[in-house]
């Protein structure tokens, strides 16, 4: 129908600049990466077509472990980010004096260049000199220095917490914006019906920010899945590879060892995994979002 067609044309006009820009800048590198993944590209000047060999190489013994770890790491990081972000947004959404300041004070982890923030966490985790270990000892909760990055299990969580820390401001900010868009009279109606603050939060705020939560968690998922600096700076994927995620693995291969072909294959694989995952996630959550079945 032509009303529709007009609208569609207009939609494309609106989209055109963004699409064009992204295509021009990113399409070539993406395609190049894809092609690269079938070659043995490295520092060598010549590259040869090797077909699926690179993909074959990925599936070695540790691969399943890395994949699994990546998903677990991402899952916890994103969930915690969302929980803390929604919590923070709720607090900052209350009409209390000083909230403008508090809102701004949430932002530093995100504003500070990532590496710096990670260094600061590195110190905090330091067993000998770090704040956390120090405080624990002060409070008598630990008898000696606790080196959080020494054990696979603690390092795993330490990296997650750092990732959460860096991601929380954005989530908070976005959730805050989502909460602000909820019409006041819904709260008023619920309030007159006797719903307390928590109940209102659960039945009105939460369901109404679900679309925003889905979007945010998905963007966050992608970013987290590809989160590199944190693990790299804090643990380099160690100890004993226990914080090695796919992206660390990819980086090691592509940049560390200059095996661009193999690295590209891993990158493509990440993209495929993420695409499948996002698709499923979207399917499931959009059904969830459309029904308030308590």
């Amino acid at each position, binding site marked *: 129908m032509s009303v529709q067609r007009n609208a569609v044309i207009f939609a494309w006009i609106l989209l055109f600049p963004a699409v064009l820009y992204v295509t021009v800048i990113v399409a070539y590198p993406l395609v190049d990466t894809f092609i690269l993944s079938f070659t043995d590209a490295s520092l060598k000047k010549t590259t040869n077509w090797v077909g699926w060999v690179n993909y074959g190489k990925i599936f070695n013994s540790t691969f399943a472990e890395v994949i699994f770890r990546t998903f677990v790491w991402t899952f916890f990081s994103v969930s915690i980010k969302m929980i803390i972000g929604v919590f923070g947004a709720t607090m900052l959404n209350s009409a209390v004096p000083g909230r403008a300041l508090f809102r701004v004070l949430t932002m530093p982890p995100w504003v500070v260049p990532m590496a710096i923030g990670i260094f600061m966490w590195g110190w905090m985790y330091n067993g000998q000199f770090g704040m956390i270990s120090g405080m624990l000892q002060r409070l008598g909760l630990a008898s000696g220095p606790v*080196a959080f990055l*020494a*054990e696979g299990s603690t390092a795993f969580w330490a990296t997650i917490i750092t990732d959460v820390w860096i991601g929380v401001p954005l989530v908070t900010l976005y959730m805050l914006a989502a909460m602000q868009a909820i019409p006041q009279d819904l709260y008023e109606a619920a309030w007159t019906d006797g719903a307390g603050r928590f109940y209102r939060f659960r039945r009105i705020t939460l369901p109404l920010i679900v679309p925003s939560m889905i979007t945010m968690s998905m963007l966050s998922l992608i970013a987290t899945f590809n989160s590199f600096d944190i693990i790299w700076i804090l643990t380099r994927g160690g*100890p004993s590879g226990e914080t090695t995620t796919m992206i660390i693995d990819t980086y090691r291969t592509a940049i*560390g060892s200059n095996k661009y072909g193999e690295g590209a294959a891993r990158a493509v694989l990440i993209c495929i995994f993420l695409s499948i995952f996002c698709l499923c996630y979207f399917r499931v959550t959009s059904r969830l979002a459309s029904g308030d079945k308590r």
Partner: protein
Amino acid sequence: AGQEISWIYCGDKIDPIHEKYIKEWEGKNPGWKVTPEVVGWEQCQDKATTLAAAGTPVGMAYVGSRTLKEFAQNDLIVPVPMTDDEKKSYYPNIVDTVTFNGTQWGVPVAFSTKALYWNKDLFKQAGLDPESPPKTWAEEIADAKAIKEKTGIAGYGLPAKTFDNTMHQFMHWVYTNNGKVIDGDKIVMDSPEVLAALQAYKDITPYSVEGATAYEQNEIRAIFLDGKVGMIQAGSGAAARLKDTKINWGVAPLPLGPSAKGKGTLLITDSLAVFKGTGVEDKAIEFAKFITSPGPQGEYELQGGAGLTPLRPSPKVDEFVKADPSWQPFIDGIAFGGPEPLFTDYKGFQNSMIEMVQSVVTGKAEPADALKKAAGEIDAFK
């Protein structure tokens, strides 16, 4: 027509001494300009590599000598052969660090060796003789044990974080026990000498700083500076820092393993690599040689505090050592020292080594098994 040699320079800013000599060289070579680009330590080598891989190499870059083999094999750099005289001017074994396929691929510009630092106060508290540092691994382990048990403070600082340096530290042990990782093209790591080193790691771990896998060398050094560990192995930079503390310290050659032939250490050099395809290769070589010639280099490396070890023996060095005897152990180790093993996929190799060390330190694997596994893995990285 003016020509330019771009130089990726690692660090925060150009050393004034280099600046001075760049000017001098430019003066002598009218029309030529050297344009250093300062890039942080973490990224400088990656940047040089990326640029080369993308087809726009820089004229010259400051890189770890260990990467030369890979660059050379991939035809990214040009050889910088040394004359015999030149070779001879260096301390022994140094030229090996830049040699591959019988020729030299870089000009050494920085050099570091390690020695053992010990905390005399802690030795005293533990009832040990504060003036006699351990000479062998056995003594080292025993001293560490004594300190740990008597004072409750860690006896030894073992860095085992997933960092380059973890392998370096281990290589010191390998080289103080006459071990070898690769011989020509053959992996010879699975040897009793290396196994002994790994076993020693296992033995000293209980008396080391808690959570070895959380620390790399700078962090361990900080702990030492804080007086919270009895012994560490570190470069010359630690001495400069120790002078600012109240700690009673000494520095000695690295203790030796049972199969040692003499004092050893890992010889790490950084080099100036000259990239291929810039059109200014010859001039770049010329400049590289100039800036690392005994005059400028000597001035550069003996500023102290930078943690460098002199590349070449010279009267000036002797004078320097005399003035500050704490330099001696660093130079002593050179004789039986060994280079960083050259691998095509150096990072791959390094990862395997780190993995091996960590598995032993954390008790996840027995030294023999870990060694065997690693030896098998690194074969792929030659």
